[in-house]
């Protein structure tokens, strides 16, 4: 995790302006102007939690594009991607670093985007499942591996597995089955046909080497 994770943004003057002002300014600046959905994990009733929203405008590099977006201090990357940038291919399976459904690449390294604060990834390259295929629709070799093997069942875990594999292959492009399994073992599939998933990902690795 980046060391500036908890650092206060230098430009933030959030306490001085209202949320509405921020949204207005976001709209004026032509940035993503969704209704700024705010989220929180709910606990059993009676157990208080500690909210505290601070909005501000930042620029993110997502799938090769500069995207202006207003985020809260405690906003996680998966929520920004899904609810502010319209990138719903990244899934939420647990929202607490248990399942890997939300895996994206940050500077080529796989991360659980449910457990990364958005403000910590300014100036970094974020890649999601939507950014893998070429603009002409040609699939990334790992995506093609899934097609070749009819990999996965419900596929709710699929974007996480594919991103984890793409990230892992950057460090080890020619893995054994056991090595690749280890490399993507932070991802859960509840449909559980891991054998075919691994075959599809190995096929993807092969496709990538040939590409």
């Amino acid at each position, binding site marked *: 995790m980046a060391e500036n994770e908890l650092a206060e943004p230098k430009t933030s003057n959030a306490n001085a302006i209202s949320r509405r002002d921020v949204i207005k300014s976001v709209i004026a600046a032509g940035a993503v102007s969704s209704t700024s959905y705010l*989220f929180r994990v709910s606990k059993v009733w009676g157990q208080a939690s500690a909210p505290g929203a601070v909005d501000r405008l930042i620029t993110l590099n997502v799938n090769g594009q500069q995207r202006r977006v207003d985020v809260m201090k405690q906003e996680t990357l998966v929520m920004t991607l899904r609810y502010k940038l319209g990138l719903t291919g990244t899934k939420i399976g647990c929202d607490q670093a248990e399942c890997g459904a939300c895996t994206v690449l940050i500077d080529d390294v796989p991360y659980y985007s449910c457990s990364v604060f958005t403000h910590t990834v300014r100036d970094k390259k974020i890649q999601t499942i939507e950014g893998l295929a070429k603009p002409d629709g040609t*699939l990334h070799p790992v995506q093609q591996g899934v097609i070749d093997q009819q990999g996965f069942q419900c596929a709710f875990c699929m974007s996480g597995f594919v991103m984890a594999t793409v990230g892992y292959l950057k460090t080890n492009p020619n893995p054994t089955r056991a090595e690749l399994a280890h490399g993507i073992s932070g991802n859960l599939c509840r449909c559980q046909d891991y054998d075919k998933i691994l075959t599809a990902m190995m096929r993807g690795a092969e496709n990538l080497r040939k590409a």
Partner: protein
Amino acid sequence: MPNVTPPKKYNLIGKNYTTGDLYAKVTGKAKYAEDYRADGMLFCKLALSPMPHARVRSIDASAALAMPGVKAILTADDLPAPANSITDNGTVILANPRGYQALTNEPLFQGQPILAVAAIDELTAAEAIEKIKINLEPLPFVVDPLVSLRPGGPNARTDGNAWVRLPPPPPKPGERPPVTPPDLQTVKWTNEDFEDAKSGRLPMGKATEEWHVGDIDAGFKNAALVLDETFVTPNTSHQCLETRTTMAYWQNGKVFVHTGTQSTAQTVPAIARWLGIDQSNVVFISEYTGGGFGSKITGDITLVIPALLSKKVGAPVMMRITREEENYIGRARPSLHGRMKVGFSKEGRITALDMFVICDNGPYDMVGDAFSSGRIVSVLYQPMAMRWRGLTILTNTPPRTSQSSPGGMQGIAIMEPVLAKAARKLGVDQVALRRINAPEGKAPFGPLVAGKQQYATSAFVKEALDRGAEQFKWNERKVNTGKRVGSKVRGVGVSVSSYSGGTIGFDGLFVIKPDGRIYIQSGVGNLGTESWTDVHRVVAELMGVPWDKCDITWGNTSKNLPWTCPSGGSQTTHAMTRAASAVATDAIKKLQEIAAKDLGGKPEDYVVANQRVARKGGGAGLTLAQAAQRAIQLGGKYDGHELPSDINKFTTVSATALAGQGLLAVAKDNYPHDGNTFSFVATFAEVEADVETGQYKILDFLAYADVGTVLHPNALGGQILGRSILGIGHTLGQKWVYDQHYGLPVSKRFHHTKPPTILDIPDKMAWGAVEIPDPETPIGARGIGEPPVGGGCAAIMNALSDALGDEIFRRAPITADVILASLEAGKPMQDPLRANI
């Protein structure tokens, strides 16, 4: 080898292909419920009960409702009363007034939703929930079925602790008797009944249900070996990776619902019933569902929360269900406490079987797992005489429902270790012992119905065992097991498994349009099994049309889908290949008639092939495109303006909307069907255990299935191995843990009851299929979702006992600490009976 039809040669059936949803899935374009947005969408949050059983005395929401951004509150008082449902044949199923509702004023488990708040965003809704004062009166509770059965033990509900199915009332003349909800009774056993518990054996007081076939006393008397074993299976949550998130809104009096489901068409009447509205006012959209495993057969009743809030406030409402909430309301497989007394001949044939089970039902609707466990054990092991007794006991734990192989998996998990032990004691080979007891052909099963046992349509378990044993090299491998090499010891295990594999009587619907393409309507849910598309390959196959000339519409009930089976209990492959055969036959008949009208001769003179209908042996014909055009001109039955009277009214509505667009084919599956359809699997595994750490690893795994004709090998393999691993999770470590004193769960998330990961599987898993068509269905294909679950769970347990001996475990899961403690003590060191440890 019984007399069987060899598999036919097909062009499409049995071949791999790329399903039409895969590109969208792999590019992130596929939309699941939480991926939809609507203008002005609000969010809602739930208030969950902190107590396992309580009554709501009062709710003060004034401070919450005064908050800016808070739009509405929904409580149990806002819910429509539970409504009756009606089956396809007109039988009324009376609503259970004690059934599960989305919100409640009397929570019966910790984590049960009491109320919901809608607000402009989730944060505001969550803050509002915290400002609501709920005054709860704590009530007695119990989280262990045996504790509830003790003399003076607490009841999960104020009015009882046991579901008892009553015999149906005598029918009124000319009427079908309604299906009544089970009766809630209070069952307590005596202290004498509990004597057996002191020695760790399941006490067997009075059961609430029982059946028997044959003379078990004589069977035990003639037995060479009698074993009497107690075994407990775990409660396990379904843990679909996609939680039951729902977005709903209303437009022009219709409700639009986005949520996950296993069964698209069947979810419409469920939504209508839960909301108390007419079916015609429901539009249900569910193109992709992130797993179901039985917990989303017709979606989930929780969907009424955003739907009713949306109606109240006049805006779309999104309800995101968190992983922890999913643990409470996402349903679970019930634990069974089981005791099996089994008599064996010296060859290993089961001469008598006395089975006793207690099902931990949770507090709501009765699950059938206790009854199913007996039925499956009966079909699978063909005991010469059998008695089954059972109770379904309520506890203050999350509601259960069917989970892949409901009851079957538990029955097999209880039975298989007994068989493994018997084979060792008798000196009989494990495969041979299963073979000698295996069902064959029209195998009988279950209780007597009108003086006779029911029977299977077919069973080729012996073939699955033989071919599986050969591929696994069973005879070579079994030689060197059980011997320690350093701290390691290996073992091999085999198991057999079964579950129902199909239903009948549903509809098929498609249109051949003047562009010459076939537009197939699919009411099957897309939960990952690919049956939403696989079953329709039959249409292209029988019509002789290339697959790329077919388009499938699915996942949106405003797009005119046919009445379709629920995708649960492995029904779809069987039921919907039948419907596909029926509707393809209808199209072929209509094409032949059109050709005869236009080109002379009799309809039988024409064949449909190569995208044409043409005279046999060559000659005049029409292309499908021309015939579609002619169908529109002819009207009537040809273009759907006249419809058959036997199709479901759901299909009639859809076909009516499609009429006039081309040649409309629509038909109900009326094929004969003699017997009950079951699928089977023989499963083989090798494990290596470390006696110093207690850890074990699966080295090799093979599941060999008897599912009739194979439709789509890649999808079948996914189902066989995927559900095998679901079952293996029950062996490796999945379970609930409860604090009995406070009635509170300790396991609430993935890491508390973790499903197997990619590191838990062997380097290579394999599957096979005997591919003998089922004789009682046109294509010969049966379903496979359920059987591998019990097979996977039991094969690993049997391999472990082969490696480590019979004195290691007496319940599942089997974790490293259990193995170490039991090896040291020389006897099983698990608490034998306590629930949820």
